[in-house]
């Protein structure tokens, strides 16, 4: 890891420099609705700087809501031309994501690349550099410190910036990060001291993973799941806003002559998700569906990939129409 400093006024120069060098910069943008979304920007002037959390996570950069897997077209010889479009993926910098989102990328990496590497994810991930921004504010939905992370966590990031007064601490974590810094090295000065604690937000810690990891083993049979899911409306808002939810559905769109195959986000909370063609649904009630979602985050992903797949960003609580609270639920079912 390398430690550097950049003055606040040079941040715009740095981002605009990346744009000038032909990179796509995806950054938080405030829309009319008052919500902040990750969007490709044309200049730093468009980038939102005052936000706790974006409405949706940055996972869309590497796992788009609709991924075109290939297009097909009948040709004149009577054959079929099938073509993927991986070569179209541009060099991308994700700017201003939060440490929880970056930790989400760490999980996505394991999920998509560990066993059977996914070509589409890999192509996007290899061309993506994450410039994360430490949190100086939080709200009642934030709970990263309960899931082994914190507002200045470097996990998953290529570069972590921490704002302090008139400058930023720059922690360069990876080679990808290095390349970005070196492309405009005049803006950065080296430093060897790092004391960012005073500039970080202090979210409430509701539990520790050490205690949950054991107790979750017996949580499947808990009677609390019913109460924990009564308010659930059975939509996919939590899963789609989540930085680590990876379920998808493959669809063909087009005609016999031409069309495309797409991969779309799906959600285990939707009643159709596990429905069999016979009509039988092994997870027929919302109680079973919400249990699956939470058990996957806190138990199954630990068993399968060795990590908890909840990063404590709190988006599921904020977007839920009835504000179902994942950290309250996890505590109640592991009582």
């Amino acid at each position, binding site marked *: 890891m390398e430690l550097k400093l950049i003055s606040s006024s040079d941040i715009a120069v740095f981002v605009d420099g990346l744009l000038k060098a032909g990179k796509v910069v995806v950054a938080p943008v405030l829309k009319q609705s008052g919500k902040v979304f990750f969007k490709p920007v044309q200049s730093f002037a468009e980038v939102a700087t005052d936000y706790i959390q974006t409405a949706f996570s940055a996972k869309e950069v590497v796992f788009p809501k609709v991924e075109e897997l290939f297009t097909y077209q009948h040709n004149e010889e009577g054959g079929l031309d099938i073509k993927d479009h991986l070569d179209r993926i541009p060099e991308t910098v994700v700017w201003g994501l939060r440490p929880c989102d970056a930790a989400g990328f760490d999980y996505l990496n394991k999920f998509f690349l560990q066993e059977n590497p996914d070509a589409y994810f890999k192509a996007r991930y290899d061309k993506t550099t994450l410039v994360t921004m430490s949190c100086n504010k939080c709200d009642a939905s934030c709970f990263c410190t309960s899931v082994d992370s914190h507002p200045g966590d470097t996990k998953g990031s290529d570069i972590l910036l921490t704002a302090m007064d008139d400058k930023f601490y720059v922690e360069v974590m990876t080679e990808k990060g290095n390349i970005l810094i070196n492309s405009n090295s005049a803006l950065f000065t080296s430093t060897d001291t790092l004391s960012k604690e005073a500039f970080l937000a202090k979210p409430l810690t509701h539990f520790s993973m050490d205690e949950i990891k054991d107790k979750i083993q017996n949580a499947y049979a808990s009677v609390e799941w019913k109460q924990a899911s009564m*308010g659930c409306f059975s939509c996919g808002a939590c899963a789609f806003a989540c930085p680590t939810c990876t379920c998808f559905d493959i669809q063909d769109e087009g005609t016999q002559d031409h069309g495309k195959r797409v991969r779309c986000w799906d959600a285990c909370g939707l009643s159709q998700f596990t429905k069999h063609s016979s009509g039988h649904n092994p997870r027929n009630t919302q109680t079973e569906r919400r249990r699956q979602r939470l058990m996957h985050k806190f138990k199954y992903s630990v068993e399968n990939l060795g990590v908890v797949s909840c990063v404590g960003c709190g988006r599921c609580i904020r977007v839920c129409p009835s*504000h179902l609270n994942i950290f309250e639920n996890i505590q109640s079912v592991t009582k």
Partner: protein
Amino acid sequence: MKELQIKAAELLENGTVNLLIGFCEDLGKRLVPCFIETAAEANILVFNQECKNNLSVYLHKKEVKDAVKIGLVANVATLRSVLQLLSENQLWSLTLTYLTVNGAGELVVLRSAEELEAYVQANFPTCRPEDQEMLDKLNAMSREERWAFWKDQLSECVKCYACRAVCPMCYCTVCTTECNQPQWIKTSAQTSGNFEYHTMRAMHLAGRCINCGECGRICPAGIPVHLLTAQMNQEMEQEFGGKTGWSLKGGYAMNTFKPGDKENFIK
């Protein structure tokens, strides 16, 4: 508040109600739906202007239906949607009791569909001023401007179907979006498929939407989808008369025929 809690406890205690759906405060001080089965829990109930959720949507939920005798702590929008649902012959398996607070701040208990109808008619809500302002703005736009507005808005849609899930009138067990033989509507959340979905939903709710605005309020992408159904409603009212969620015998425009209906759109 105390009065509401005491009344709720009494209804649970004497067996009038097996399950009471109301609001309580969560750890973040937000007012969220709560589900109460015993009188001892009634002291968590809260009810005020900030209780926005339309709780009637839960009456379609299996775990709720199983309780049969249900109490609802409800705002007028919720009561209005229950009335519309009753007029559409839904909820027939349930025995419902309603608790609300009127304009004078008094607790009101409604024990029958007729009492519900009378209360809703006496306290009928009008279109929210901010919604009317947006509708007027949209109607004053050229077709191209309106198209651009909705294209920008709907490009953010991720098809989480939260708008459908919170809508008490979206009670179909299989939605058109889930039919795949033939596939009427694209599953992918791209702008064209998003237009298809939201247009279809607005059409299915024309003359049935009770304008509670929940779909727009809770949209994670901040899309004002409720304006689509609100606009449809105003047009239906203008063309066919009648109000949604107004009476037990209301029926709704899409499945009612009256000899006096204007037919000037058939050419």
